[in-house]
Structure formats: C-alpha cells, structure tokens
C-alpha cells in the first residue's frame, strides 16, 4: 500500500513542555484516520509539523514521501488543510475567497472557476456563494473551509476539528462527504477531533492522543476489544442499601460504584468473569427493577474515558 503520511519518533518540545512525544504514525492513501484527544493533547502541533508550519524538535515526517521541513512548498502543494476555527476574508464572497486560494495554488483561471463551482456545490454552499463571507454562520464557514482545503485537489487532506461548529444533521452530512472523498479520490485523510462518536462513524482507524503520546491506535473495533473491560453499567430502581447488597452478592462482582447523588441512577459493576445474565437474574430475584443494562467497553467513548483516566484532565463535551 501507498503510504501517505509517515512519522518516526516525531517530537516537538516547547522549552520544558513536550507537546508531541515520539509519535510514530502511518496513514495510507484512501484511509480515514481519526486523531482523538482532548484540547492541548498535541493534535494541532502534530498537524502543523505535517504541514511544515512547525519544525519538529526531533524525528522525521514524510507526506507522500516529501519532507515538509526541507520542501515546505512541495508539501503544501499536495496537502489540503482545514485549520481549527477557520477564517475567511469577511468582505469577500465565499467564491472570491476560494478564488484567492486557487490563484495562490497557481491554478489556471478557467480550471479554477470550474472547480470552485463544483466544490461549492459539493459542500452545499451554492446558494450563499456570492454573499460576503462575513455574513456566514460558523457552520457555513466550516463548509467553506472544507471546500477551500479541496481547491488544490490535495492528495492528503488534514482537517483540524472539522465538525466543531456544525449542527448534528450537518455533521453527518459533512462526515459522509469527507469519507466518500477519501474513498473515491484515494485521498489520505487525517481528521482530529475531541468528539469521538463522530470520528467513530467515519474513521478506518483512530489514534487516541493524550499529552503528546499516542496511547492507543487501531480500528475502532480492535480498540474496543483490546480495552476488554469487564464493567457493566446497570440502571435500577430501589433503595440504595438493598441494591448495593444485591449487587455485591451477584456472581463474580468485585467492585460496585453507586451513581452520584441519591435516587435511581446508573450503577457501575466490575466483575472478574463477567456474566451479565447471571447478574441480571440475581437482581431480579432480589425484586429489584432493572431498566437498563449496558456493557462498557463496547463503545469508543468508554475506551476514551478509560484511557483518559490515566491521562490528563479532559474537556470532552459529547
């Protein structure tokens, strides 16, 4: 397979702080890779190094075989980039903004115009393409940013928080679009996000990035299995003491964590050899009403939290 992005022991230090710590990453053409992590984990720094906008302290990066440190222009020619909280010239229309990007990329005028119309169509901005970008909503700017990143017809597309300001419906649409782009055009796609449920849906592989380190990397299903947590979350109604007693008596249970506050809530149970039906039967026999049982570790969210507990504080808001 064709490697689009490769980094070896990539490190970036700012004085005492190590923002990115020996990152080894490999992304192939046509692959959608999600870089997950809280703000400040080093995602943006990594992206800047891939683009040649920040110089690595040590280690190497290659984008399509090009070293962005030595040949930044060659790298920037083939890498489309949508920055976090992208901005546009407010007095220019969406179309004029894209036209500027096309010129900066040396596209011939006619070809540029065609591509711009096509892209505006693609991201669903055709109706607003001739109003000033200053009148756009955050979500529209994000869409325009996506079109902007595509103007140069990139081989590699890097999207920093691409769905941060888009409404839920739009997110599904945009992510679908992003995925089909990668698949149809064979574009390698790296997207960073702290909203993992979105990432989970579109990514072939994800990497969980905490405090400059890639602490887990693989297909979402693989990660779920490797997480292998024997924890269930169970929603029951009844008196706290009774529930606690019944849960503790259930087969194999090692720890019981009550829900925060009083009243009904979700209890977390960790068991050595998790036998969910047996636990449910025990509780039912004790006369406790069960309204929800969920096995943790089957959702990327849980993996994320699991890894986070070892990492730094988290600001995720999904």
């Amino acid at each position, binding site marked *: 397979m064709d490697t689009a992005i490769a980094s070896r022991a990539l490190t970036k230090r700012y004085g005492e702080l190590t923002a990115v710590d020996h990152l080894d990453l490999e992304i192939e053409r046509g692959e959608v890779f999600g870089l997950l992590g809280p703000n400040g984990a080093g995602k943006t720094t990594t992206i800047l190094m891939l683009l040649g906008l920040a110089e690595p302290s040590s280690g190497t990066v290659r984008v399509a075989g090009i070293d962005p440190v030595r040949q930044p222009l060659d790298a920037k020619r083939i890498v489309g*980039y949508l920055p976090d909280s992208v901005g546009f*010239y407010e007095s220019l229309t969406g179309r004029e903004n894209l036209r500027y990007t096309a010129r*900066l990329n*040396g596209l011939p005028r006619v070809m540029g115009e065609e591509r711009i119309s096509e892209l505006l169509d693609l991201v669903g901005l055709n109706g607003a393409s001739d109003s000033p970008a200053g009148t756009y909503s955050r979500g529209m700017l994000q869409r325009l940013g996506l079109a902007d990143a595509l103007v140069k017809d990139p081989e590699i597309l890097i999207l920093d928080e691409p769905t941060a300001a888009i409404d839920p419906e739009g997110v599904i649409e945009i992510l679908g679009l992003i995925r089909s782009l990668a698949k149809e055009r064979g574009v390698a796609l790296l997207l960073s996000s702290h909203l993992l449920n979105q990432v989970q849906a579109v990514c072939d592989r994800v990497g969980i990035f905490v405090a400059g380190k890639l602490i887990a990397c693989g297909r979402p299903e693989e990660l779920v299995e490797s997480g292998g947590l024997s924890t269930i979350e169970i929603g029951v109604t009844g008196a706290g003491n009774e529930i606690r007693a019944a849960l503790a008596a259930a087969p194999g249970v090692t720890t019981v964590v009550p829900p925060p506050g009083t009243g009904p809530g979700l209890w977390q149970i960790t068991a050595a050899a998790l036998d969910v039906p047996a636990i449910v039967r025990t509780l039912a026999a004790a006369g406790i009403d069960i309204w929800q049982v969920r096995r943790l570790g089957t959702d990327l969210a849980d993996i994320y939290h699991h890894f986070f507990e070892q990492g730094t504080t988290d600001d995720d808001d999904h």
Partner: protein
Amino acid sequence: MTTTTEDSTTFVTRQRSHGWRVVARKELADYLLSARFIVLLIILSLAAAGAVYAAASGIRDVAPQASGAPSLFLRLFTISADPMPFSFFALIGFLAPILGIAFGFDAISGERAQGTLPRLIAQPIHRDDVINGKYVAGLFVIGVMLTTLVLIVAGLGIFRLGITPTFSEAIRLLMWLVVAILYVGFWLAFATLCSVALRRASSSAMVAIATWLVLALFAALLVHLLAGVIAPAPADATNAELLHNAQVEQNLSRLSPITLYDDATSALLDPEVRSVGVVTVQQLDRAIVTDLSLDQSLLLVWPQIVGLVALTAVSFAVAYVVFMRQEIRA
C-alpha cells in the same frame, strides 16, 4: 513518485515566483475599495489643495518682490501662507507616516484576527511572499495617491499663478516625489513589522503611531541631551567643541527618518540650499547666493536617500525574521 505529484510540481515552478503577485493583486483590490483609502484620499486632497492655494495667494501678494526669484514654481510647495500653517511638503511630511501606518498596521495582524493566516500560509507560497505582496500593494496605492496629488496641486498652481515649471523644476519635483514615496515606504515597512510582531492590530497601530510621535516630538530633545553627553559643549566651550557638539547632534538626529526626509526635501525643492550639514557663519561670509544644479542637489541628498532605504531594509529584515520564527496557530 506518482504522476500527480509530477504534474503539480510543474505547475508550481511556474507560480513559485508569482506568490507575492497573487497576494499583491488581492490586497490592491481590497485597498482600492476600502474605506480607509477613500477617507485618506479625501483628507489628503483637501489639505494639499488648501496648502497650495494659500501658498499661491501668498506668492501673488508679494509678486513684485518675487519676480526674478529663482524656482518660483517650487515655492508653491515650500512656503506656507495664511490661513494654512503648513507648506505642502511639510504637510506631506506630516501625513506620510499616517499613510504608511494606515496601510501597514494590520497587514499580518489583520489576517491573524480574521483567522485567515493559518489558511494563507498553508498554501504553497513562501511566508515572505505574504509580506512582500502586501508591501508592494500598499506602496503602489500610496504612490498613486501621492503622484496624483502632486500632479493636481501642480496643475492648480499653474492655473493660479500662471507660471509653468522649467524642466529642472519638474525633475526636482519628481525626485522629491520619489523621496516622499520612499519615506512613506519606510513607515509602511515599520508598520508591517509592528503587525508581524504584535498579535493585535490595535496594539500594532498604537506602537507604530507612538514611535512616530516620539520621533516627531521628542527626538530633537533626546538627541540634544545625548549630544551633550557624547560631545559636551559647556558655556566656555571652544569653537571646535561647539562645532563637534553640533555635528554629533546632527548625525544623531539623522537616525530618524523624519530628519532624513526633511533634509532631502529642503535640498531638492530649494535649489539655493547648498548643504544639509552644519554651516558656520564664516562659511557663509561673502558666499554668492546661486542655485545648485540638479545633479549637485541630488548628490547632496544622496546619503539621506540611502539612509531612508537602509531604515526600510532593516524594518523588513526584522519583520521577515520575526515572521519566519513565528508559529502560526488558529
């Protein structure tokens, strides 16, 4: 490597040298439509027309004495008369920094504020293309503005006074225009430097304006004090000491672009000026007042012109270095 890469490589060799042109073209279009351009043009035109109109009236009033005076046409630009307190060249000297700062203070910080900078530098252009393109566009707009102004004012003067410039007067005026544009160019470069170094456009404008005010208002005082320290001239100083003090003071003051512009202007627009340095009374004794030829005047102000270009180059160099070392994040 795949064919796509090769294709894109070929088209970029073509555009590599044109990155700054693309930036300049866009900025030019922006400037020409911007409110600041229109407002500055109106203010400048009114002030300049007023200055020249007043000067013309002044000359007409003293026409009998003035007849036969050399370079009467250039006097239009150099004398002030009621009700305008400034001559045209002093006015431009005063407004040039404002022009330069107005077109430069948000060059980079404005992009930063709009969030367009990360996108811009992720395009296949060098970072200095951004600065160069913006500088060229700004200087072009200002150049067009000043040239138009000088032409209008000269026309007005011809109309009011009924005298036409001689060839050498026209060339002097043209040379002065070049110096004025260089002078604005320095302030534009300095304001661009501020916009690179400071995150916010407002602080960049503040620093640039403050620098200009300090140079314009307090530089003379500072230079005087410094000269007193370096080459003291006590009350009982000898002539040599006094001369040394005056020379040190003058050389120090030439670190300021304002002095450079004033020196160059006075020598270019007034052919009778024979030195921009320290002149003693003995040297003037029995000197015959004649006009310097154009090439002699140019020779006289050549160091000033070089000085202005050098100051501009230094501002640019610092701006480049700072910009290159900056990490651009959203």
